[in-house]
């Protein structure tokens, strides 16, 4: 199993605020890796740095062995990394279909149609609503759309930021089922979650982030059992 993503000692600042203090981790091919931690710990910031929307002052980020630490954000997706941002951020004024087309912005024209079919297969609800304006979809549907949009570029690594946020428990189960299926069909997944319980239940490996540092790591199972994690994130 090769390493897909290597994050090596990144330090990220928002102005004077030192948000990420030397984080390093890696994601191997075929894994589901999760970053868990409280609100504001630096999980989303880490994903944004991988995507190039933020920059690290130190260290390096390697994807499939090549450094992407200086790659402009709009060229990251073409390398094979898709990022489903926190809060879904679908294009509210575009239709479902147009959102998917945006996801395929860098995809070759002849692959767009089969990819749309694939996404509709994964999310039949989106097919029913393909001409609907995205802003009128429910939260769960928007999450599906955001994930579908990210799949349009045939990513090798899918980064999901809080996919369960604001969703009813039944939808959370559905979304996680879909994540597991995507992983089974070969997509490597980096998952950021506050819902540590859910995240650890599907993760191969997990990292705990606290105030910009990784404080704990291990397999999903190990961390779920760990006294510290249980106290802090799993409600005892």
């Amino acid at each position, binding site marked *: 199993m090769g390493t897909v993503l290597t994050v090596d000692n990144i330090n990220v600042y928002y102005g004077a605020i030192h948000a990420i203090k030397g984080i390093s981790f890696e994601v191997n091919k075929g894994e589901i890796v999760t970053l868990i931690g409280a609100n504001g710990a630096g999980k989303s910031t880490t994903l944004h740095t991988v*995507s*190039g*929307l933020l920059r690290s002052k130190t260290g390096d980020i390697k994807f499939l062995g090549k450094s992407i630490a200086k790659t*402009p*954000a*709009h*060229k*990251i*997706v*073409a390398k094979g990394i*898709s*990022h489903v*941002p926190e*809060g879904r*951020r*679908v*294009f*509210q*004024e*575009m239709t479902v279909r*147009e959102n998917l*087309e*945006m*996801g395929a*912005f*860098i995809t070759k024209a002849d692959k767009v149609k089969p990819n749309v079919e694939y996404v509709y297969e994964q999310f039949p609800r989106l097919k029913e609503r393909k001409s609907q304006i995205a802003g009128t979809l429910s939260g769960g549907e928007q999450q599906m759309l955001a994930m579908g*949009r990210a799949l349009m*570029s045939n990513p090798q690594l899918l980064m999901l930021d809080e996919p369960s946020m604001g969703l009813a428990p039944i939808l959370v189960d559905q979304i996680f089922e879909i994540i597991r299926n995507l992983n089974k069909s070969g997509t490597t997944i980096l998952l950021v979650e506050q819902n540590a319980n859910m995240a650890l239940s599907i993760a191969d490996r997990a990292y705990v982030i606290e105030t910009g540092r990784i404080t704990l790591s291990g397999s999903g199972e190990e961390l779920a059992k760990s006294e510290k994690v249980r106290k802090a994130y799993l409600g005892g």
Partner: protein
Amino acid sequence: MNMINSLISGLSLGSVYSIIALGYTMVYGISKMLNFAHGDIIMVGSYISFCLTTYVGMPGWAALIGAVAVCTVLGIVIERLAYRPLRGTGSLSVLITAIGVSYFLQNMALLVWGANPRVFKSLFKGLEPIRLAEGQIIITAESFFTIIVCVVIMVGLTLFVHKSKAGKAMRAVSEDNGAAQLMGINVNQSISLTFAIGSGLAAVAGVLMCSAYPVLMPTTGAMPGIKAFTAAVLGGIGSIPGAMVGGLILGTIEIFSRAYISTELSDAIVFACLVIVLLVKPTGLFGKKISEKV
């Protein structure tokens, strides 16, 4: 009959405002800045067209193309040099810079072309006006073609932003710059393209306007620029249909005020209408509610 004649000149003037307002609204939509130098691009376009016909002897249509080309490049250069370095630094500094660019363009024009007003030769010189209803309704060639050009631009631009890949990318960047980058859209390119289109359209508007009102000075673009900005706000800034409708409404109100109320007060009436619309509907006619994202 007078009413109809006024309506036609109102729509014609409104068409010019619409075309200018499109530039304001598109640039605002994509980079959330008010490009107050936009009005002066109109003036530059008109001068270029004037020079090409007067000194080079080009036919009007070729001069128009030349003016569009120069302004397109000018728009891209202004964005690259003046606005891009300030991106992400807060709207006040960008606004002040835009006003600075506006003065810069006016003073450059003053330096190059002097302060004396030039008489602009109409693009449609020699074309007979259209007379309807036994000559009671007169549509000048300028009015006629201005309205036609405006309609063509509106249809073309609407198709462009809804059907073409680059147009959709522009909409995506307007809505969510960060998410657009995650899709692989080059935001800088999209913004450059928007400035290019807006400035090219400003040149068209300038030539059409100076064909109807042929006095050309370095400050020629200032007032129509402000009016078109008003039109864009009236229609809901950021909205393309809003700019189109806002421009037409504003032009019509202006001409009707001139014809039936008072020439001196017409500008005041135009701006009063803006105040009233904003009091009733603060986001403008087609504006969306702006909700803060948490």
